[in-house]
């Protein structure tokens, strides 16, 4: 009767399979075909090369602010690789690698970051939401999608991404709680990259891990080495299979690191040390996976060049995209434009016509001005 310990007691596990020293836990190694392993590698490498290219495009003023992914390739690819095409992926704003893997054309993403909403339009058969900017607000959408899938009897699983900072938002809590109560097929993949802009994890929460936050919802939580694509894959596979089998939601915390800037408007030298970054560079997810593949005779020399060419081709297509009609802003506000929007559309059409030349000299399609996102100093990385 007195002070009794309630059951169940809780613990949080950490999963690591291929560590940064190259040690492999063969007992836990997922069974993946060579083709599957190569696909993972290809997607990770493409993510990395594209990311580096996009930073340059931004520095040249050819696209606007975006959030680079460097260092987080294994977390994104290991998890997204477990999805079927008919499953849903719900990104936050830092899942470029995963989005490309899910079939988003590179040029479309570039268009989005160049300031055109057209870049956020998923293809008709694509089961992906566009990126969501307000932190954590996409999480309940994923739970709703999962509810709907279950309601319709579809066997789709929903995977939703979030950052460490996102776990502080009320929407994280409400989404996790709804998912727990409803027992819907959704997998929360938290990329704990140690920072939310300048705020380190220890100022974000007093909890030892993010995985343990799942305990509050009676949901399984697992921590995984997020720079170990095999471990991420294994953890996500387990969670996705459980979700598809009716076992409900899971929270996966991927321990990883953002090697670059928060966004291209950020200067991380203000808040973190070079030593810290160098230490994490030694845990680079690409290095260890490349070594693993080479050891298994699955190396692909020359792949960088192939991917770079693919990217260059996509950049060309992006830059050849004719600036879309500014009048398009009036489409899709409602299914049918109401009277006041028709009148406003006419107003803009009149103004565009009066100013003569249609695009790109018109005010809508003017090339982006150079005003920076903020008074930033030059960033060092």
């Amino acid at each position, binding site marked *: 009767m007195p002070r009794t310990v309630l059951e169940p007691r809780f613990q949080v596990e950490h999963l690591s399979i291929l560590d940064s020293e190259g040690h492999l836990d063969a007992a836990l190694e997922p069974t993946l075909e060579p083709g599957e392993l190569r696909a993972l590698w290809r997607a990770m490498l493409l993510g990395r090369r594209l990311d580096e290219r996009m930073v340059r495009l931004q520095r040249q003023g050819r696209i606007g602010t975006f959030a680079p992914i460097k260092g987080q390739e294994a977390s994104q690819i290991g998890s997204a690789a477990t999805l079927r095409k008919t499953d849903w992926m719900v990104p936050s704003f830092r899942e470029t690698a995963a989005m490309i893997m899910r079939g988003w054309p590179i040029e479309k993403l570039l268009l989005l970051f160049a300031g055109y909403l*057209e870049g*956020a339009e998923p293809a008709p058969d694509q089961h992906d939401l566009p990126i969501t900017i307000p932190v954590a*607000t996409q999480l*309940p959408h994923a739970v709703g999608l999962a509810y709907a899938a279950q309601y319709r009897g579809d066997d789709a699983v929903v995977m939703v991404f979030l950052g460490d900072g996102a776990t502080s938002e009320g*929407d994280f809590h*409400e*989404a996790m709680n*709804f998912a727990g109560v409803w027992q819907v097929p959704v997998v929360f993949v938290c990329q704990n990259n140690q920072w939310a802009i300048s705020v380190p994890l220890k100022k974000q929460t007093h909890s030892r891990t993010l995985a343990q936050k799942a305990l509050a919802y009676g949901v399984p939580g697992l921590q995984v080495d997020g720079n170990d694509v095999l471990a991420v894959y294994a953890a996500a596979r387990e969670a996705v299979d459980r979700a598809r089998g009716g076992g409900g939601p899971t929270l996966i915390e991927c321990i990883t690191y953002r090697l670059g800037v928060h966004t291209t408007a950020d200067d991380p030298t203000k808040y973190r040390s070079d030593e810290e970054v160098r230490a994490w560079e030694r845990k680079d997810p690409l290095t260890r996976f490349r070594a693993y593949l080479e050891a298994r005779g699955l190396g692909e020399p020359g792949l960088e060049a192939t991917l770079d060419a693919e990217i260059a081709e996509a950049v060309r297509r992006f830059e050849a995209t004719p600036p879309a009609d500014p009048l398009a802003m009036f*489409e899709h*506000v409602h299914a049918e434009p109401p009277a006041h929007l028709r009148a406003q559309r006419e107003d803009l059409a009149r103004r565009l016509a009066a100013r003569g030349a249609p695009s790109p000299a018109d005010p809508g399609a003017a090339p982006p001005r150079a005003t920076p996102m903020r008074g930033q100093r030059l960033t060092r990385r």
Partner: protein
Amino acid sequence: MPKLNMVKALNLALFEEMARDPDVLVLGEDVGVDGGVFRVTDDLQRKFGSQRVIDSPLAEAGIIGTAVGMALYGLKPVCEIQFSGFAFQCFHQIENHAARYRARSRGRFHCQMVIRMPYGGGVRALEHHTESEEQFYAHIPGLTMVVPSGPRTARALLAAAIRDPDPVIFFEAKALYHAAKEDVPDESETLPLGRARVAREGTDLTLIAYGAMLRVALEAADTLQSEDGASVEVLDLLTISPLDREAIVASVGKTGRAVVVHEAPRSFGPGAEIAASIMDGAFLSLEAPVRRVTAYDVSFVGFAREKATVPDAPRVVAAARETLAF
């Protein structure tokens, strides 16, 4: 033609729409077993099951956020927020997402969803239970903001809102829930969203109202007719946004004088847009400035003092007289 009060009329519309379309589901706090704290969803769970009529956890952003996800999948959730005073908890999900998903995805996705909320005074309740927040929704592009004025319009507009492919904020005046019964047709009916209704014809002055204030406007019109011999037209907006400027301008173009009535606080309230739109569309017909009879710019006053700030017929009559005499 059954005679129903507004609660029953809304309940009927929900029954009909759920029977008509298996993608329609109902989600909110206490909407299931309890049938909603005002009984608008009474018996729905018994009929349609707990998968379609969902007693959610106590979290408004969770309700609207998950409903957005359901809508993106193709379902048609009808959410209940227990009182409009608690909808600010989900305001970000409404503004950031429900209202924008169609535009953001260039039409690939859309949110066919209805967010029902009881609003307004008249129920002797505590803070946040009697406010009138329509203005916040009216200003958001992509949303439709509807306020029925009685059982029949409530049933027809709720059906229309559920069938509308875009998100609709649906305000239900608590003061009307049990106020009066009206004949509603046996067959399901809809009213077009975005259209005002001439509730009474007249030639000297236009009173513009909606929701629970329609009664007040009609009562004032009666008084003005009988005591002043004034012929007063009363417009029942039904939809606040998109605003039926055409109907408003047509009426004021004819009468030359207008008074707007609402329960929301005055400053930066819906009456401002209505007045400004009249100026835009009927400036040369205006014989007097458009007056606004509204709640004062005070936060909750306690129900014992509610009548001192919520417009009543004498206040509308007084404003109308000044307008007629201008």
